[in-house]
C-alpha cells in the first residue's frame, strides 16, 4: 500500500477534509503468536488512517486478522502468546503499543470504546442494566453515582430503547438480543469516545433487528462525530455503513478504497471474488427459469404439524407456560425440489426439521415418502431413516471428533448394513469425489479440515444412503461467503444430478432466494406466506415477508434505502400461558400455489 492511496481516498470522504490529522494511525503493524516453532505472524504490515467522523470497514473472512487488529488497538491481545511485534498505533499524539496497562485503562472505554458480537456475553448477567451503565461512566468520570445514573438513562434514550426507565432496573437476560446490543451501544457511546470499534456488531442478530441496530449506529455516529471502525464479514453491511473499506485476507492487507470505488472497481482479484460470492437479493430472480408446473411425487408431506414444549415452574413443577414452537404447519416437498423455510430465530423452522427426523415429538401428520411417521400409528423406522437425512449448522460439532472422516461417512452404511465392507469403502470413495474432496483425505480426522470441507463431509455422509430428502438446517450459515457460494453450487448440482430434494432452512434471505424452488416464510411457529421463489421475492404479499426482504443489507453502496419502521415494545414471543390459545392464521391461495396468511 502506498501513502498516496490513503490520501486520495481520504480526500474523497467529505468529513475528513476539515479535520487536521487522523485520530488513529496504524503504521506497519505486525501481530504474531508465540508457538513452539517460534513467532508466527498473524497480521502483517498493516497500515491505515482513521479520521474523525469517518466509518472505516475492515472486511475479510474468518482468519483474516480483522478482530486481532481491533484487539491490538484496545491493548487487549490475549497475553502472553499473542502480541504486537512491530509497527505502531498512534492514537492522536499517544503511542498505544508501548503504553502501560493503567494508562491504557484510561483510554479504553473512555476515548476508544468497543462493542462485541455477542451482547449477552459482554454484559454482566447478575448486574442490572442501569448499574452497569452507571458504573462504566463512574469508572472514567468523577461524578456521583446518581448523576451517572441520569447519564445512563439519557444514553438509553439516545439508543431509542423503549421504556428506558424500566430497562434501567432490568437484568440482561430480560432483554432481547437487539435490545442488549442497544445497551452495549449506549454503554460505548455514553462517554462520547473518539473512536468506536464495532466487531461484528450485528452478526448474532436477526435481519430485521440488524437493520435497526445499523440505522441507529449510523445516526449516532453522525450526531457525535465519532470515528467508527466496523469489523464485519458481511459485504452488505459494509456497503450500507462504510465510507472507506479495507479488505484483509489471512492477516495481509489486500486493498483499501472508498466504498463506492471498491464496489464498482475492485482492484484486487480477492476483492472481486469476495464481492462475487456475496449472495444478493435479486440475483436469484434474474437467473431462475420460468417455473414450470412440477408434477413430481411428494417426498415429504406435513399436515397440521404442531410441536409444543411445556415450561414447568414453581416448587411443584407444574406446567404453567407452553412454548408454541410449531403451530399447524402444512407443507409438501416434491422430488428434486429445493424447498426453503425462512424466518428469524425462534420462529420454529429448526423444530420442524427435528420433528421430521424424530428428534422431537409432534402431533399432526408427517409422511416421508408416503410413510406415516406420526404417532400414534407410525414411527420412524430404519426404512424411513434411509429416505431422510440431515446436515447440521456446525459441521465441527456434528462430526465425532475421534473418528476418521472416512469412517464417519461409512457410518450410515454400517448402521443400515448396506453392502460388504469393500463395497462400503468404494461408496465412500465415490461420495468423497462427488462432494469435491479427494480420496487421500479419507483417513484424516475432522479437525484437519477447513469449515467448508467439513460441511462437504457432512453432505457426503447424508448422501451415503441415497436419501430422497436432505434437511439442511442453516448448513451454510457458519461458512465464509466464498466457501458458502461453492457449497451452494454443490447442493444445486446434487439436486440436478441425483434428484434428491432439499429442505433448506435458513435465516439468510439472499441465500434462500439464490437456491430455492419454493419458499415458506415462518413467523412465530406458523407459515405466513408460501409460494415459488419468484412469488415470494418478486411479489411478496404478507407484511412480514416484505419487512424481512427490505431489511436485508444489499452489497451496493449507491442504492438508497428507506428506513424500516421500528417495532414498538417487547418482541412477540412463542411462550404463552397454558390457558391462552394461539390465534391460528388461515392461508389463502392467491393463485399458482401462492399461499398468503390473511391479516
Amino acid at each position, binding site marked *: 500500500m502506498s501513502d498516496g492511496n490513503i490520501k486520495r481516498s481520504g480526500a474523497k470522504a467529505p468529513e475528513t477534509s476539515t479535520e487536521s490529522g487522523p485520530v488513529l494511525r496504524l503504521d506497519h503493524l505486525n501481530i504474531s503468536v508465540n508457538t513452539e516453532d517460534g513467532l508466527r505472524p498473524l497480521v502483517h504490515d498493516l497500515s491505515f488512517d482513521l479520521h474523525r467522523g469517518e466509518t472505516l470497514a475492515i472486511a475479510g473472512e474468518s482468519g483474516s486478522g480483522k478482530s486481532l487488529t481491533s484487539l491490538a488497538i484496545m491493548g487487549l491481545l490475549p497475553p502472553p502468546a499473542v502480541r504486537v511485534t512491530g509497527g505502531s498505533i498512534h492514537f492522536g499524539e499517544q503511542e498505544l503499543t508501548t503504553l502501560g496497562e493503567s494508562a491504557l485503562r484510561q483510554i479504553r472505554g473512555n476515548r476508544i470504546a468497543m462493542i462485541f458480537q455477542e451482547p449477552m456475553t459482554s454484559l454482566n448477567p447478575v448486574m442490572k442494566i442501569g448499574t452497569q451503565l452507571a458504573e462504566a461512566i463512574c469508572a472514567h468520570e468523577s461524578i456521583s453515582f446518581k448523576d451517572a445514573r441520569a447519564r445512563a438513562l439519557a444514553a438509553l434514550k439516545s439508543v431509542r430503547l423503549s421504556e428506558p426507565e424500566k430497562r434501567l432496573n432490568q437484568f440482561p437476560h430480560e432483554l432481547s438480543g437487539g435490545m442488549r446490543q442497544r445497551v452495549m451501544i449506549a454503554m460505548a457511546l455514553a462517554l462520547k469516545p473518539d473512536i468506536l470499534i464495532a466487531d461484528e456488531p450485528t452478526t448474532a442478530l436477526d435481519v430485521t433487528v440488524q437493520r435497526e441496530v445499523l440505522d441507529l449506529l449510523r445516526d449516532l455516529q453522525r450526531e457525535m462525530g465519532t470515528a467508527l471502525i466496523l469489523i464485519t464479514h458481511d459485504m452488505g453491511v459494509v456497503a450500507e455503513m462504510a465510507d472507506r473499506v479495507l479488505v484483509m485476507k489471512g492477516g495481509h492487507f489486500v486493498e483499501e478504497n472508498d466504498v463506492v470505488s471498491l464496489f464498482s472497481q475492485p482492484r484486487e482479484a480477492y476483492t472481486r471474488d469476495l464481492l462475487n460470492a456475496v449472495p444478493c437479493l435479486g440475483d436469484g430472480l434474474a437467473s431462475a427459469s420460468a417455473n414450470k408446473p412440477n408434477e413430481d411425487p411428494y417426498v415429504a408431506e406435513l399436515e397440521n404439524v404442531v410441536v409444543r414444549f411445556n415450561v414447568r415452574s414453581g416448587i411443584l413443577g407444574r406446567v404453567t407456560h407452553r412454548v408454541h414452537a410449531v403451530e399447524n404447519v402444512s407443507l409438501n416437498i416434491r422430488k428434486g425440489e429445493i424447498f426453503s423455510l425462512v424466518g428469524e430465530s425462534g420462529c420454529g423452522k429448526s423444530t420442524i426439521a427435528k420433528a421430521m*427426523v*424424530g*428428534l422431537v415429538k409432534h402431533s399432526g401428520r408427517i409422511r416421508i415418502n408416503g410413510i406415516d411417521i406420526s404417532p400414534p400409528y407410525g414411527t420412524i423406522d*430404519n426404512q424411513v*431413516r*434411509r429416505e*431422510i*437425512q*440431515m446436515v*447440521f449448522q*456446525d459441521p465441527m*460439532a*456434528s*462430526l*465425532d*471428533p*475421534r*473418528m476418521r472422516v472416512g469412517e464417519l461417512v461409512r*457410518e*450410515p452404511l454400517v*448402521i*443400515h448394513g448396506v453392502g460388504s465392507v469393500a463395497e462400503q469403502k468404494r461408496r465412500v470413495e465415490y461420495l468423497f*469425489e462427488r*462432494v*469435491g*474432496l*479427494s480420496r487421500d483425505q479419507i483417513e484424516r*480426522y475432522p*479437525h*484437519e*479440515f*477447513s469449515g*467448508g*470441507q467439513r460441511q462437504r463431509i*457432512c453432505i457426503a*455422509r447424508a448422501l451415503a444412503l441415497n436419501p430422497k430428502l436432505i434437511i439442511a438446517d442453516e448448513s451454510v450459515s457458519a461458512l465464509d461467503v*466464498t*466457501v458458502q457460494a*461453492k457449497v451452494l*453450487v*454443490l447442493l444445486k*448440482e446434487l439436486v440436478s444430478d441425483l434428484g434428491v430434494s432439499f429442505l433448506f432452512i435458513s435465516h439468510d434471505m439472499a441465500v434462500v432466494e439464490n437456491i430455492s424452488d419454493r419458499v415458506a416464510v415462518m413467523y412465530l411457529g406458523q407459515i405466513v406466506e408460501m409460494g415459488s421463489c419468484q412469488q415470494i421475492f418478486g411479489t411478496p404479499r404478507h407484511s412480514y415477508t416484505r419487512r424481512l426482504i427490505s431489511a436485508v443489507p444489499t452489497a451496493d453502496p449507491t442504492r438508497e434505502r428507506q428506513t424500516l419502521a421500528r417495532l414498538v415494545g417487547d418482541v412477540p414471543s412463542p411462550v404463552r400461558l397454558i390457558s391462552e390459545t394461539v390465534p391460528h392464521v388461515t392461508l389463502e391461495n392467491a393463485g399458482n400455489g401462492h399461499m398468503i396468511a390473511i391479516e
Partner: protein
Amino acid sequence: MANSTSIDPIVTARKEPGILVQIARRKLALFGLFLVLLTVFAAVFAPWLTSFEPNEQMFDGLSIHGAPMPPGGAFLLGTDLLGRDLLTRILYGARTSLIIGVAANGLALLIGTIVGVTAGYFRGWIGSVLMRLTDLMMAFPALLLAICLAAIFQPSLWIVALVIAIVYWVQTARVLYAETASLAEREFIAAERTLGASHIRILVKHILPHLVPTIIVWGTLGISTTVLLEATLSFLGVGVQPPTPSWGNIIFENQTYFQAAPWLVFFPGLAIVTLALAFNLVGDALREILDPTQRGRD
C-alpha cells in the same frame, strides 16, 4: 467442483507425542511409574528375590528372649513376632495389594461406567433411579459398609476385592454420569441418531471413546485408594486373613509391639504410602495429558 478443494485451505494439526513420551517428560510421573513397576517386579519375582517362605517361622528369627529380630544381618528388614522374615512378607504382600488394586478397582470401574453412562445417556426415570442409588451409596459411610459386608461374607482375598469394588464404584459413576450427560447433548450424537444408529452403537462407538481418558485417569487414581482401603480393612481385621500376608494385616498383627519393634509397622506402612503415592503421581500425569480441560492449570 474438483478445483474447489484446492482453494479451501487444509488445516494441518501438529501430531501430539505419545502418552509414554509425555510421561517421560514429567520427572515426577516418571518416578511414580518407576515405583509402580518396581512393586510389580517385586510381586511377580518375590520367590526369587528372597530365600525365605512368607509363612515360614524360623528358629533364629527370634532372639533368646523370644523377641523379633531388628533389621540387619540375615534378615534385612528384621523379623516379626512369629519369627517370619519381614522383607519376604512385604514382597509377598505386594501381590495381595496389587491383586486388590487391579481386581477391585477394575470391577469398581466396570460397575461405575455401566451405571454412570447408562444414567447419563438415558436420563429420565432410569437415570434418576441409578443416580439416587449412587447418592445413597455416597451418603453411607464407606468403611462401615465394607465392615458390614466383610462380616457377612467369609473374608478372603477375592471377597475383599468385591467388597472394595461395591464401596468404590460410586465416584466413577458420578464423574462419568456428568461427562456422558454433556456428551449426549452434543450435536454429533444428534447427527448419529438421525442416521438411525441404535443406542448401543452410539454408546459404544461414539460415547465410550470420549470417556476413555477419564476412565484411565480414574482407574489409575483409584488403585491408590483401593490399596489404602484394603490396608484399612486388613488393619481392622476384616480384610485379608492371616497367614496370607498383606501390608495392612502385617501392621495389624504387629501394632501392639510398635514401641518395642517399630520396624514391624514402619516398613509395611512405608510400602503402602509409596505405592499409593506412585499411582497418584502417574494418575495425575495421565489426567494432565489426556484431559484437555486440565491443560495449562499446572
